[in-house]
Protein backbone atom coordinates (compact mmCIF):
# COMPACT_ATOMS: atom_id res chain seq x y z
CA UNK A 1 0.00 0.00 0.00
CA UNK A 2 2.71 2.46 1.02
CA UNK A 3 4.70 1.39 -1.99
CA UNK A 4 1.74 2.00 -4.24
CA UNK A 5 1.29 5.54 -3.00
CA UNK A 6 4.98 6.30 -3.08
CA UNK A 7 5.00 5.17 -6.71
CA UNK A 8 2.05 7.38 -7.51
CA UNK A 9 3.69 10.35 -5.85
CA UNK A 10 7.00 9.54 -7.53
CA UNK A 11 5.35 9.59 -10.91
CA UNK A 12 3.51 12.76 -10.00
CA UNK A 13 6.71 14.57 -9.05
CA UNK A 14 8.42 13.31 -12.16
CA UNK A 15 5.63 14.83 -14.21
CA UNK A 16 6.02 18.10 -12.33
CA UNK A 17 9.74 17.99 -13.02
CA UNK A 18 9.13 17.35 -16.69
CA UNK A 19 6.53 20.09 -16.73
CA UNK A 20 9.06 22.54 -15.31
CA UNK A 21 11.15 21.96 -18.44
CA UNK A 22 8.06 22.53 -20.53
CA UNK A 23 7.21 25.76 -18.73
CA UNK A 24 10.76 27.02 -19.07
CA UNK A 25 10.57 26.40 -22.79
CA UNK A 26 7.14 27.99 -22.99
CA UNK A 27 8.51 31.34 -21.92
CA UNK A 28 11.16 31.32 -24.63
CA UNK A 29 10.38 32.82 -28.02
CA UNK A 30 8.68 30.54 -30.47
CA UNK A 31 10.92 28.76 -32.96
CA UNK A 32 8.31 27.52 -35.41
CA UNK A 33 7.11 29.42 -38.45
CA UNK A 34 3.63 29.43 -39.91
CA UNK A 35 4.71 27.81 -43.11
CA UNK A 36 2.57 28.83 -46.07
CA UNK A 37 2.40 32.44 -44.92
CA UNK A 38 5.89 32.68 -43.45
CA UNK A 39 8.70 31.13 -45.39
CA UNK A 40 12.24 30.42 -44.38
CA UNK A 41 14.94 31.26 -46.87
CA UNK A 42 17.50 28.48 -47.23
CA UNK A 43 21.19 29.12 -46.84
CA UNK A 44 23.18 29.99 -49.91
CA UNK A 45 24.32 26.86 -51.64
CA UNK A 46 21.01 25.13 -51.03
CA UNK A 47 20.28 22.37 -53.48
CA UNK A 48 16.81 23.14 -54.66
CA UNK A 49 15.15 22.79 -58.05
CA UNK A 50 17.52 23.12 -60.96
CA UNK A 51 17.59 26.08 -63.26
CA UNK A 52 19.12 26.12 -66.71
CA UNK A 53 20.33 28.76 -69.08
CA UNK A 54 20.23 27.77 -72.73
CA UNK A 55 22.39 30.74 -73.72
CA UNK A 56 25.37 29.77 -71.55
CA UNK A 57 25.27 26.05 -72.21
CA UNK A 58 27.88 24.75 -74.65
CA UNK A 59 26.26 21.36 -75.02
CA UNK A 60 29.26 19.44 -73.75
CA UNK A 61 27.36 16.52 -72.21
CA UNK A 62 29.34 16.65 -68.96
CA UNK A 63 26.25 17.00 -66.83
CA UNK A 64 24.56 14.11 -68.61
CA UNK A 65 27.48 11.86 -67.74
CA UNK A 66 27.76 13.15 -64.20
CA UNK A 67 24.14 12.54 -63.31
CA UNK A 68 23.69 9.42 -61.17
CA UNK A 69 20.10 8.88 -62.18
CA UNK A 70 20.53 9.71 -65.85
CA UNK A 71 17.75 12.23 -65.76
CA UNK A 72 19.28 14.86 -68.02
CA UNK A 73 18.78 14.73 -71.75
CA UNK A 74 19.87 17.19 -74.39
CA UNK A 75 20.18 17.55 -78.09
CA UNK A 76 22.82 19.48 -79.95
CA UNK A 77 21.73 22.38 -82.07
CA UNK A 78 22.71 22.39 -85.71
CA UNK A 79 23.28 25.40 -87.94
CA UNK A 80 21.81 25.97 -91.39
CA UNK A 81 24.30 23.70 -93.07
CA UNK A 82 23.47 20.86 -90.72
CA UNK A 83 26.71 21.10 -88.72
CA UNK A 84 26.65 20.72 -84.95
CA UNK A 85 27.22 23.91 -82.97
CA UNK A 86 28.06 24.32 -79.31
CA UNK A 87 24.52 25.12 -78.28
CA UNK A 88 21.62 22.98 -77.21
CA UNK A 89 18.54 22.55 -79.32
CA UNK A 90 16.68 21.42 -76.24
CA UNK A 91 17.62 20.36 -72.74
CA UNK A 92 15.45 18.54 -70.27
CA UNK A 93 15.66 17.38 -66.67
CA UNK A 94 13.31 14.81 -65.24
CA UNK A 95 12.61 16.04 -61.73
CA UNK A 96 10.85 12.81 -61.00
CA UNK A 97 14.25 11.14 -61.01
CA UNK A 98 16.48 13.95 -59.84
CA UNK A 99 18.39 13.40 -56.61
CA UNK A 100 19.27 17.06 -56.07
CA UNK A 101 22.87 16.02 -55.67
CA UNK A 102 24.67 18.87 -57.42
CA UNK A 103 26.89 16.59 -59.48
CA UNK A 104 25.62 18.19 -62.68
CA UNK A 105 26.30 21.69 -61.46
CA UNK A 106 29.78 20.73 -60.30
CA UNK A 107 30.66 19.14 -63.61
CA UNK A 108 29.45 22.05 -65.72
CA UNK A 109 32.49 23.80 -67.22
CA UNK A 110 30.89 27.12 -68.15
CA UNK A 111 31.12 30.30 -66.15
CA UNK A 112 28.58 31.10 -64.84
CA UNK A 113 27.17 27.59 -64.61
CA UNK A 114 24.64 26.74 -67.26
CA UNK A 115 22.79 24.44 -64.91
CA UNK A 116 22.57 25.30 -61.24
CA UNK A 117 20.51 24.75 -58.13
CA UNK A 118 18.06 27.38 -57.05
CA UNK A 119 16.82 27.75 -53.51
CA UNK A 120 13.41 26.56 -54.51
CA UNK A 121 12.29 23.84 -52.13
CA UNK A 122 8.63 23.99 -53.01
CA UNK A 123 8.84 21.81 -56.05
CA UNK A 124 5.49 20.10 -56.37
CA UNK A 125 3.82 18.47 -59.29
CA UNK A 126 0.21 17.77 -60.04
CA UNK A 127 0.85 15.54 -63.03
CA UNK A 128 3.69 13.46 -64.33
CA UNK A 129 4.08 15.64 -67.40
CA UNK A 130 5.11 18.48 -65.17
CA UNK A 131 8.08 16.56 -63.82
CA UNK A 132 10.01 16.73 -67.05
CA UNK A 133 11.16 20.30 -67.34
CA UNK A 134 12.33 21.40 -70.74
CA UNK A 135 14.45 24.30 -71.88
CA UNK A 136 15.01 25.81 -75.29
CA UNK A 137 16.41 29.03 -76.57
CA UNK A 138 14.17 31.83 -75.43
CA UNK A 139 12.73 29.98 -72.43
CA UNK A 140 13.42 31.44 -69.03
CA UNK A 141 15.60 29.68 -66.45
CA UNK A 142 12.71 27.87 -64.83
CA UNK A 143 11.79 26.19 -68.08
CA UNK A 144 8.51 24.85 -69.35
CA UNK A 145 7.02 21.42 -69.45
CA UNK A 146 5.53 19.60 -72.39
CA UNK A 147 1.89 18.81 -71.92
CA UNK A 148 1.18 15.61 -73.80
CA UNK A 149 -2.57 16.13 -73.80
CA UNK A 150 -2.66 19.60 -75.32
CA UNK A 151 0.68 19.23 -77.14
CA UNK A 152 2.20 22.52 -76.13
CA UNK A 153 4.69 23.94 -73.63
CA UNK A 154 3.26 25.18 -70.40
CA UNK A 155 4.43 27.01 -67.35
CA UNK A 156 4.93 24.68 -64.39
CA UNK A 157 1.86 25.66 -62.43
CA UNK A 158 2.32 23.04 -59.75
CA UNK A 159 5.41 24.77 -58.60
CA UNK A 160 5.05 27.54 -56.08
CA UNK A 161 8.25 29.42 -56.65
CA UNK A 162 9.99 31.31 -53.92
CA UNK A 163 10.25 34.22 -56.19
CA UNK A 164 12.62 36.41 -54.28
CA UNK A 165 15.28 33.92 -53.33
CA UNK A 166 16.76 32.83 -56.62
CA UNK A 167 20.46 33.45 -56.69
CA UNK A 168 21.10 34.30 -60.28
CA UNK A 169 17.83 35.55 -61.54
CA UNK A 170 15.06 37.79 -60.32
CA UNK A 171 11.54 37.19 -61.45
Amino acid at each position, binding site marked *: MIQYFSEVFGAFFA*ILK*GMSVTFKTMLKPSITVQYPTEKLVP*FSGFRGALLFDAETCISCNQCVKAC*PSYCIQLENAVNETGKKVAKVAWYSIDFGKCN*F*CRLCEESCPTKPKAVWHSKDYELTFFRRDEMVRCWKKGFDFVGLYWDRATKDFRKPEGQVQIQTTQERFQY
Partner: protein
Amino acid sequence: MSNSPAAPELKSDQLFVNLGPQHPSTHGVLRVGLTIEGEIVVKAVPDIGYLHRGTEKLAELRGYHHCVVISDRWDYLSAMNNNLMFCLAAEKLLKVEVPERAQHLRVAMCELNRIASHLLFFGTFGIDMGAFTAFLHAFREREMVLDLFEMSCGARLTYNYIRLAGVMKDVPDAWVARCREFLEFFKPRLKEYDELLSFNPIFLDRTKGVGAISKAAAVDWGLSGPNLRASGVDYDARKSEPYSGYEKYDFDVPLGGDGDCWDRYYCRVREMHESIKIVEQALAKLQPGPILGKGVAKVPKPVPGEAYVHVEGARGDLGCYLVSDGNMAPYRMHIRAPSFINLAILQEMLVGERMSDVIAILGSIDIVLGEVDR
Protein backbone atom coordinates in the same frame (compact mmCIF):
# COMPACT_ATOMS: atom_id res chain seq x y z
CA MET B 1 4.85 -23.97 -38.20
CA SER B 2 6.44 -22.49 -41.26
CA ASN B 3 8.65 -19.47 -40.98
CA SER B 4 6.50 -17.39 -43.27
CA PRO B 5 4.80 -14.47 -41.57
CA ALA B 6 1.66 -15.07 -43.57
CA ALA B 7 -1.03 -17.47 -42.49
CA PRO B 8 0.59 -19.58 -39.79
CA GLU B 9 -1.32 -22.52 -38.40
CA LEU B 10 -2.70 -21.46 -35.09
CA LYS B 11 -3.77 -23.37 -32.06
CA SER B 12 -7.27 -22.59 -30.90
CA ASP B 13 -6.29 -20.08 -28.22
CA GLN B 14 -3.82 -18.23 -30.37
CA LEU B 15 -4.26 -15.11 -32.38
CA PHE B 16 -2.28 -13.81 -35.31
CA VAL B 17 -1.62 -10.08 -35.31
CA ASN B 18 -0.02 -8.07 -38.05
CA LEU B 19 2.12 -5.27 -36.69
CA GLY B 20 2.65 -2.99 -39.63
CA PRO B 21 3.59 -2.51 -42.39
CA GLN B 22 2.10 0.89 -41.77
CA HIS B 23 2.34 0.95 -38.01
CA PRO B 24 3.72 4.29 -36.83
CA SER B 25 6.16 2.74 -34.38
CA THR B 26 7.93 0.70 -37.04
CA HIS B 27 9.38 3.93 -38.43
CA GLY B 28 8.96 2.81 -41.98
CA VAL B 29 7.48 -0.20 -43.61
CA LEU B 30 8.19 -3.21 -41.50
CA ARG B 31 5.70 -5.96 -40.87
CA VAL B 32 6.01 -8.18 -37.87
CA GLY B 33 3.76 -11.22 -37.87
CA LEU B 34 2.98 -11.84 -34.23
CA THR B 35 1.31 -14.92 -32.88
CA ILE B 36 -0.04 -14.17 -29.45
CA GLU B 37 -1.52 -16.26 -26.72
CA GLY B 38 -3.52 -13.96 -24.54
CA GLU B 39 -1.09 -11.13 -24.03
CA ILE B 40 2.09 -13.09 -24.53
CA VAL B 41 3.89 -13.28 -27.84
CA VAL B 42 4.71 -16.85 -28.75
CA LYS B 43 6.14 -16.25 -32.19
CA ALA B 44 7.35 -13.20 -34.04
CA VAL B 45 8.43 -13.13 -37.64
CA PRO B 46 9.71 -9.83 -39.04
CA ASP B 47 8.81 -9.43 -42.69
CA ILE B 48 11.03 -7.07 -44.58
CA GLY B 49 11.52 -5.99 -48.15
CA TYR B 50 8.83 -3.35 -48.56
CA LEU B 51 11.45 -0.71 -49.26
CA HIS B 52 13.80 -2.79 -51.34
CA ARG B 53 15.28 -0.66 -54.09
CA GLY B 54 18.09 -2.89 -55.23
CA THR B 55 20.78 -0.30 -54.66
CA GLU B 56 23.55 -2.86 -54.35
CA LYS B 57 22.72 -4.06 -57.82
CA LEU B 58 22.24 -0.53 -59.06
CA ALA B 59 25.77 0.32 -57.95
CA GLU B 60 27.09 -2.18 -60.45
CA LEU B 61 25.81 0.08 -63.21
CA ARG B 62 26.97 3.37 -61.74
CA GLY B 63 30.33 5.04 -61.37
CA TYR B 64 32.04 5.54 -58.05
CA HIS B 65 31.01 9.16 -57.79
CA HIS B 66 27.42 8.13 -58.41
CA CYS B 67 27.55 5.50 -55.70
CA VAL B 68 28.08 8.20 -53.07
CA VAL B 69 24.67 9.55 -54.04
CA ILE B 70 23.20 6.07 -53.77
CA SER B 71 24.77 5.60 -50.35
CA ASP B 72 22.73 8.53 -49.03
CA ARG B 73 19.62 6.47 -49.47
CA TRP B 74 20.45 3.55 -47.20
CA ASP B 75 20.41 4.96 -43.74
CA TYR B 76 18.86 8.27 -44.56
CA LEU B 77 18.95 9.39 -40.95
CA SER B 78 22.73 9.30 -40.82
CA ALA B 79 23.69 9.67 -44.44
CA MET B 80 27.07 11.18 -43.61
CA ASN B 81 28.21 7.92 -42.11
CA ASN B 82 27.07 6.08 -45.23
CA ASN B 83 28.92 8.53 -47.44
CA LEU B 84 32.02 8.09 -45.35
CA MET B 85 31.79 4.32 -45.39
CA PHE B 86 31.51 4.13 -49.15
CA CYS B 87 34.20 6.74 -49.73
CA LEU B 88 36.63 4.96 -47.41
CA ALA B 89 36.11 1.72 -49.31
CA ALA B 90 36.51 3.39 -52.69
CA GLU B 91 39.56 5.30 -51.48
CA LYS B 92 41.10 2.05 -50.37
CA LEU B 93 40.62 0.72 -53.89
CA LEU B 94 41.86 3.89 -55.54
CA LYS B 95 44.71 4.28 -53.03
CA VAL B 96 44.28 8.01 -52.58
CA GLU B 97 45.06 10.16 -49.57
CA VAL B 98 42.59 12.44 -47.84
CA PRO B 99 43.86 15.86 -46.74
CA GLU B 100 43.96 16.71 -43.06
CA ARG B 101 41.23 19.32 -43.11
CA ALA B 102 38.86 17.04 -44.96
CA GLN B 103 39.47 14.33 -42.34
CA HIS B 104 38.46 16.63 -39.52
CA LEU B 105 35.47 17.93 -41.43
CA ARG B 106 34.39 14.36 -42.07
CA VAL B 107 34.64 13.47 -38.41
CA ALA B 108 32.77 16.59 -37.34
CA MET B 109 29.99 15.92 -39.86
CA CYS B 110 29.67 12.27 -38.95
CA GLU B 111 29.41 13.02 -35.27
CA LEU B 112 26.90 15.78 -35.86
CA ASN B 113 24.95 13.31 -37.90
CA ARG B 114 25.15 10.79 -35.09
CA ILE B 115 23.68 13.41 -32.78
CA ALA B 116 20.89 14.13 -35.24
CA SER B 117 20.16 10.45 -35.65
CA HIS B 118 20.14 9.73 -31.92
CA LEU B 119 17.95 12.77 -31.38
CA LEU B 120 15.43 11.32 -33.75
CA PHE B 121 15.61 8.05 -31.87
CA PHE B 122 15.18 9.88 -28.59
CA GLY B 123 12.13 11.71 -29.87
CA THR B 124 10.39 8.81 -31.54
CA PHE B 125 11.16 6.40 -28.72
CA GLY B 126 9.53 8.90 -26.40
CA ILE B 127 6.47 8.94 -28.63
CA ASP B 128 6.35 5.17 -28.69
CA MET B 129 6.34 5.25 -24.90
CA GLY B 130 3.65 7.92 -24.83
CA ALA B 131 5.84 10.92 -24.04
CA PHE B 132 5.18 13.47 -26.71
CA THR B 133 7.05 16.47 -25.31
CA ALA B 134 10.46 14.88 -25.68
CA PHE B 135 9.86 14.56 -29.40
CA LEU B 136 9.34 18.28 -29.84
CA HIS B 137 12.45 19.07 -27.85
CA ALA B 138 14.52 16.60 -29.83
CA PHE B 139 13.32 17.96 -33.14
CA ARG B 140 14.16 21.50 -32.15
CA GLU B 141 17.77 20.48 -31.67
CA ARG B 142 17.80 18.23 -34.71
CA GLU B 143 16.63 21.15 -36.79
CA MET B 144 19.74 23.03 -35.74
CA VAL B 145 22.00 20.20 -36.82
CA LEU B 146 20.18 19.98 -40.13
CA ASP B 147 20.65 23.72 -40.54
CA LEU B 148 24.37 23.18 -40.10
CA PHE B 149 24.29 20.56 -42.82
CA GLU B 150 22.23 22.77 -45.06
CA MET B 151 24.83 25.47 -44.63
CA SER B 152 27.70 23.20 -45.50
CA CYS B 153 26.32 21.08 -48.31
CA GLY B 154 22.92 22.43 -49.26
CA ALA B 155 20.83 19.43 -48.33
CA ARG B 156 19.12 18.42 -45.15
CA LEU B 157 18.85 14.67 -45.44
CA THR B 158 20.72 13.29 -48.44
CA TYR B 159 23.99 15.10 -48.12
CA ASN B 160 26.34 13.67 -50.73
CA TYR B 161 28.89 15.75 -48.82
CA ILE B 162 31.74 13.34 -48.28
CA ARG B 163 33.34 12.67 -51.64
CA LEU B 164 36.09 10.45 -52.85
CA ALA B 165 39.34 11.83 -51.40
CA GLY B 166 37.75 14.65 -49.50
CA VAL B 167 34.55 16.55 -49.02
CA MET B 168 32.27 18.39 -51.40
CA LYS B 169 33.23 21.90 -50.43
CA ASP B 170 34.67 23.81 -47.57
CA VAL B 171 32.37 24.99 -44.83
CA PRO B 172 31.51 28.68 -44.89
CA ASP B 173 33.24 30.91 -42.35
CA ALA B 174 30.18 31.30 -40.19
CA TRP B 175 29.78 27.56 -39.91
CA VAL B 176 32.34 26.87 -37.21
CA ALA B 177 30.99 29.60 -34.96
CA ARG B 178 27.46 28.41 -35.52
CA CYS B 179 28.44 24.85 -34.79
CA ARG B 180 30.08 25.88 -31.51
CA GLU B 181 26.95 27.84 -30.68
CA PHE B 182 24.86 24.77 -31.26
CA LEU B 183 27.07 22.60 -29.07
CA GLU B 184 26.85 25.14 -26.25
CA PHE B 185 23.10 25.23 -26.64
CA PHE B 186 22.87 21.48 -26.78
CA LYS B 187 24.84 20.56 -23.64
CA PRO B 188 22.29 21.82 -21.10
CA ARG B 189 19.52 20.34 -23.23
CA LEU B 190 20.86 16.87 -22.58
CA LYS B 191 20.32 17.47 -18.88
CA GLU B 192 16.75 18.48 -19.63
CA TYR B 193 16.25 15.25 -21.54
CA ASP B 194 17.13 13.31 -18.41
CA GLU B 195 14.52 15.25 -16.50
CA LEU B 196 11.95 14.95 -19.22
CA LEU B 197 12.31 11.30 -20.05
CA SER B 198 15.31 9.30 -18.93
CA PHE B 199 14.54 9.12 -15.23
CA ASN B 200 10.81 9.54 -15.41
CA PRO B 201 9.38 6.66 -13.31
CA ILE B 202 6.65 5.93 -15.85
CA PHE B 203 9.21 5.69 -18.62
CA LEU B 204 11.45 3.58 -16.41
CA ASP B 205 8.58 1.22 -15.64
CA ARG B 206 7.95 0.68 -19.31
CA THR B 207 11.56 0.17 -20.33
CA LYS B 208 13.61 -1.14 -17.39
CA GLY B 209 13.96 -4.87 -17.52
CA VAL B 210 12.03 -5.12 -20.77
CA GLY B 211 13.57 -6.97 -23.69
CA ALA B 212 16.90 -7.68 -22.10
CA ILE B 213 19.61 -9.06 -24.37
CA SER B 214 22.36 -10.97 -22.68
CA LYS B 215 25.98 -10.40 -23.62
CA ALA B 216 26.21 -13.79 -25.25
CA ALA B 217 23.01 -13.38 -27.26
CA ALA B 218 24.10 -9.95 -28.45
CA VAL B 219 27.36 -11.34 -29.76
CA ASP B 220 25.70 -14.44 -31.20
CA TRP B 221 23.23 -12.43 -33.22
CA GLY B 222 25.93 -10.11 -34.45
CA LEU B 223 24.45 -6.98 -32.94
CA SER B 224 26.50 -3.84 -33.19
CA GLY B 225 26.39 -0.23 -32.21
CA PRO B 226 24.49 1.00 -29.16
CA ASN B 227 22.45 -2.20 -29.08
CA LEU B 228 25.58 -4.25 -28.51
CA ARG B 229 27.18 -1.82 -26.14
CA ALA B 230 24.03 -1.62 -24.04
CA SER B 231 24.57 -5.29 -23.27
CA GLY B 232 28.01 -4.44 -21.92
CA VAL B 233 30.17 -5.55 -24.84
CA ASP B 234 32.88 -3.00 -25.41
CA TYR B 235 33.11 -2.83 -29.17
CA ASP B 236 33.28 0.31 -31.22
CA ALA B 237 34.87 0.46 -34.66
CA ARG B 238 36.08 3.96 -33.89
CA LYS B 239 38.22 2.51 -31.11
CA SER B 240 39.06 -0.95 -32.35
CA GLU B 241 39.87 -0.03 -35.94
CA PRO B 242 40.14 3.73 -36.09
CA TYR B 243 39.49 5.37 -39.42
CA SER B 244 39.56 9.00 -40.56
CA GLY B 245 41.86 9.86 -37.68
CA TYR B 246 39.54 8.78 -34.86
CA GLU B 247 42.58 7.53 -32.97
CA LYS B 248 43.53 11.16 -32.34
CA TYR B 249 40.27 11.94 -30.62
CA ASP B 250 39.63 11.54 -26.95
CA PHE B 251 36.26 10.04 -26.18
CA ASP B 252 34.69 7.24 -24.17
CA VAL B 253 32.51 4.43 -25.33
CA PRO B 254 29.38 4.34 -23.16
CA LEU B 255 28.42 0.88 -22.02
CA GLY B 256 25.20 -0.41 -20.55
CA GLY B 257 24.69 -3.21 -18.10
CA ASP B 258 21.62 -5.35 -18.53
CA GLY B 259 20.94 -4.72 -22.19
CA ASP B 260 17.30 -3.86 -21.64
CA CYS B 261 15.35 -1.20 -23.49
CA TRP B 262 16.36 1.50 -21.04
CA ASP B 263 20.02 0.63 -21.38
CA ARG B 264 19.79 0.81 -25.14
CA TYR B 265 18.04 4.12 -24.84
CA TYR B 266 20.46 5.59 -22.35
CA CYS B 267 23.48 4.32 -24.25
CA ARG B 268 22.43 6.53 -27.13
CA VAL B 269 21.83 9.53 -24.92
CA ARG B 270 25.32 9.14 -23.51
CA GLU B 271 26.74 8.71 -26.99
CA MET B 272 25.44 12.16 -27.75
CA HIS B 273 27.59 13.48 -24.90
CA GLU B 274 30.60 11.79 -26.46
CA SER B 275 29.77 13.07 -29.92
CA ILE B 276 29.72 16.61 -28.58
CA LYS B 277 33.24 16.05 -27.26
CA ILE B 278 34.41 14.73 -30.61
CA VAL B 279 32.89 17.58 -32.59
CA GLU B 280 34.51 20.09 -30.26
CA GLN B 281 37.89 18.48 -30.75
CA ALA B 282 37.41 18.30 -34.50
CA LEU B 283 36.55 22.00 -34.64
CA ALA B 284 39.63 22.83 -32.60
CA LYS B 285 41.81 20.81 -34.96
CA LEU B 286 40.42 22.44 -38.08
CA GLN B 287 43.30 24.17 -39.89
CA PRO B 288 43.06 25.86 -43.26
CA GLY B 289 44.12 23.62 -46.08
CA PRO B 290 42.92 21.70 -49.09
CA ILE B 291 39.70 19.74 -48.74
CA LEU B 292 39.95 17.52 -51.78
CA GLY B 293 42.83 15.12 -52.36
CA LYS B 294 44.44 14.59 -55.71
CA GLY B 295 44.37 11.52 -57.85
CA VAL B 296 40.66 10.94 -58.33
CA ALA B 297 39.64 11.05 -61.96
CA LYS B 298 36.27 12.24 -63.16
CA VAL B 299 35.45 8.63 -63.93
CA PRO B 300 37.62 6.66 -61.51
CA LYS B 301 38.68 3.20 -62.61
CA PRO B 302 40.44 1.49 -59.73
CA VAL B 303 42.77 -1.40 -60.39
CA PRO B 304 41.09 -4.78 -59.98
CA GLY B 305 40.90 -5.77 -56.36
CA GLU B 306 38.65 -5.75 -53.37
CA ALA B 307 38.27 -3.73 -50.25
CA TYR B 308 36.31 -4.03 -47.05
CA VAL B 309 35.83 -1.09 -44.78
CA HIS B 310 33.67 -0.73 -41.74
CA VAL B 311 32.81 2.34 -39.78
CA GLU B 312 30.80 2.97 -36.66
CA GLY B 313 27.54 4.29 -37.99
CA ALA B 314 24.80 5.68 -35.82
CA ARG B 315 23.10 2.30 -35.74
CA GLY B 316 26.08 0.04 -35.58
CA ASP B 317 28.88 -1.44 -37.52
CA LEU B 318 28.42 -0.24 -41.07
CA GLY B 319 30.49 -2.15 -43.56
CA CYS B 320 31.07 -1.95 -47.27
CA TYR B 321 32.63 -4.64 -49.41
CA LEU B 322 33.67 -3.42 -52.81
CA VAL B 323 35.05 -5.47 -55.67
CA SER B 324 36.53 -3.72 -58.65
CA ASP B 325 37.30 -5.33 -61.98
CA GLY B 326 38.96 -2.24 -63.37
CA ASN B 327 35.83 -0.78 -64.90
CA MET B 328 34.12 2.47 -64.10
CA ALA B 329 31.52 0.76 -61.92
CA PRO B 330 32.09 -1.59 -59.00
CA TYR B 331 31.88 -5.24 -59.94
CA ARG B 332 30.10 -5.97 -56.72
CA MET B 333 29.09 -3.94 -53.74
CA HIS B 334 27.81 -5.40 -50.55
CA ILE B 335 26.67 -3.46 -47.54
CA ARG B 336 26.74 -4.77 -44.03
CA ALA B 337 23.69 -2.94 -42.83
CA PRO B 338 23.57 -2.78 -39.04
CA SER B 339 19.80 -2.24 -38.91
CA PHE B 340 19.21 -5.40 -40.88
CA ILE B 341 21.35 -7.50 -38.58
CA ASN B 342 20.04 -5.87 -35.42
CA LEU B 343 16.51 -6.54 -36.59
CA ALA B 344 17.12 -10.27 -36.80
CA ILE B 345 17.27 -10.69 -33.04
CA LEU B 346 13.67 -9.52 -32.84
CA GLN B 347 12.32 -12.97 -33.62
CA GLU B 348 14.00 -14.36 -30.54
CA MET B 349 13.60 -11.39 -28.30
CA LEU B 350 9.90 -10.83 -28.72
CA VAL B 351 8.97 -14.38 -27.75
CA GLY B 352 7.62 -14.41 -24.23
CA GLU B 353 7.19 -10.66 -24.04
CA ARG B 354 3.89 -8.97 -23.54
CA MET B 355 2.13 -7.40 -26.49
CA SER B 356 2.43 -3.94 -24.95
CA ASP B 357 6.20 -4.27 -24.72
CA VAL B 358 6.62 -5.14 -28.38
CA ILE B 359 6.60 -1.48 -29.33
CA ALA B 360 9.15 -0.63 -26.66
CA ILE B 361 11.50 -3.33 -27.89
CA LEU B 362 11.03 -2.51 -31.53
CA GLY B 363 11.60 1.17 -30.84
CA SER B 364 14.68 0.56 -28.74
CA ILE B 365 16.41 -1.43 -31.48
CA ASP B 366 16.26 1.73 -33.62
CA ILE B 367 16.07 0.46 -37.15
CA VAL B 368 15.89 2.40 -40.38
CA LEU B 369 14.00 0.52 -43.00
CA GLY B 370 15.85 2.16 -45.84
CA GLU B 371 18.93 0.40 -44.58
CA VAL B 372 17.25 -2.88 -43.72
CA ASP B 373 15.91 -3.33 -47.24
CA ARG B 374 18.48 -1.31 -49.16
